[in-house]
């Protein structure tokens, strides 16, 4: 089976998964808690439909694909903001500090993205390369912000709700693979370009599966069984005392 055929099959498979995810979102009424994520998924489905319909017309496909990609990246950033709000809203003390850190980081990432555009703009001849460069800069900001979200929540010791974690993980995985693809695809041979497109398709389908899995699996309840027994506590206290007296 040729690479192009596999990419085509992956595309069809991803459309099926997107339909399943859209149905799961409707069934679970996820748009109430995650309107940006729901909008992102429905837009991806719309993009898949429109690009599939325009596949035969190269010029129309090019414009439709990149217009939808631009909107998709903006919606992706809105999803990141939604996750941030969801993770930090119950903790006003942390939210203030996290907002400050995020503002500084976003500024640094935008500067890095501008650096990418400035240094590579001389080599980016033609519309396609310019679009790829813009996509690279935007994905760079998206991946950086998602990384910061994971790092800050780890530093603050926050527990993510299952579906929030799934949304961030799926989005992060796809954005990271897409960042590598748009960065390197202009510098490699056509055969390697095909491999990158394949990797992008696989990562998008994987993200869809992650979202489906995390949305459909029931949330693990916090149980009092996690709280240790008195005998265990005494053992631990003993261990700590030994640690100090070492």
């Amino acid at each position: 089976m040729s690479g192009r055929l596999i990419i085509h099959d992956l595309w069809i498979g991803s459309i099926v998964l997107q339909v399943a995810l859209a149905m799961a979102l409707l069934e679970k009424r996820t748009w109430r808690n995650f309107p940006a994520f729901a909008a992102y998924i429905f837009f991806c489905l719309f993009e898949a439909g429109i690009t599939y319909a325009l596949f035969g017309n190269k010029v129309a496909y090019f414009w439709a694909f990149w217009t939808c990609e631009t909107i998709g990246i903006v919606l992706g950033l809105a999803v990141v903001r939604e996750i941030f709000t969801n993770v930090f809203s119950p903790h006003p003390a942390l939210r203030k500090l996290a907002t400050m850190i995020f503002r500084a980081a976003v500024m640094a990432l935008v500067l890095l993205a501008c650096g990418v555009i400035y240094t590579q703009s001389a080599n980016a001849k033609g519309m396609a390369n310019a679009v790829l460069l813009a996509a690279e800069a935007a994905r760079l900001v998206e991946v950086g912000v998602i990384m910061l979200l994971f790092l800050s929540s780890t530093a603050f010791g926050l527990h993510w709700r299952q579906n929030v974690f799934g949304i961030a993980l799926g989005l992060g995985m796809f954005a990271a693979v897409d960042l590598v693809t748009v960065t390197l695809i202009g510098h490699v041979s056509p055969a390697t370009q095909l491999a990158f497109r394949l990797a992008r398709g696989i990562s998008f389908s994987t993200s869809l599966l992650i979202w489906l899995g995390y949305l459909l699996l029931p949330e693990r309840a916090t149980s009092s069984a996690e709280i240790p027994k008195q005998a265990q506590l005494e053992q631990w206290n003993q261990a700590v005392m030994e640690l100090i007296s070492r």
Partner: protein
Amino acid sequence: MTITVIVVALALCAVMLFYMAVRSRRKKAGQSFHPVDLSAFRTLIDRDDELFMKEKLPRSKFVRLKRQRIRVTARYVGRIASNASAVLHVSAAVRLSPMPEVASAAAQVTELAAQIRIQCLVALAKLSLEYAMPSLQLTPALLVPRYQTLRENVRRLGDLQTQNQIPLASAI
């Protein structure tokens, strides 16, 4: 070319980070509370005896002892941070309680635990600096009273929650 390498490295770091996040989430599923002996911790961060040690001991021995002490203190701070994180998790669930006084107490506990978590980050940064430069004295003094208050609030929350028979406060 350099910037391309930086961008690709960042993306690969992101993939690694996501993998680690999934792994740590699985580990956290079985997270439990670690008791902290506050009087021992207080002794560890009380630096009055440090001046005496600094005067009496040779510098190399003082540096070795101080670094040892910092390592143990850092473990304590790590435990406090881990407990604060676990309290954040439990109290976030209790905040949804239909009883307003329970929900309000849980909100207070959550806020305090979040503040302690920040204090722990600051304390660990101070300890790292002290480890690098043992002549420095940057005591994480605020941590003990705050943690004591957290324990009391958690105990109060446990009292309010009639269905919670397990002494959570004693666990931390």
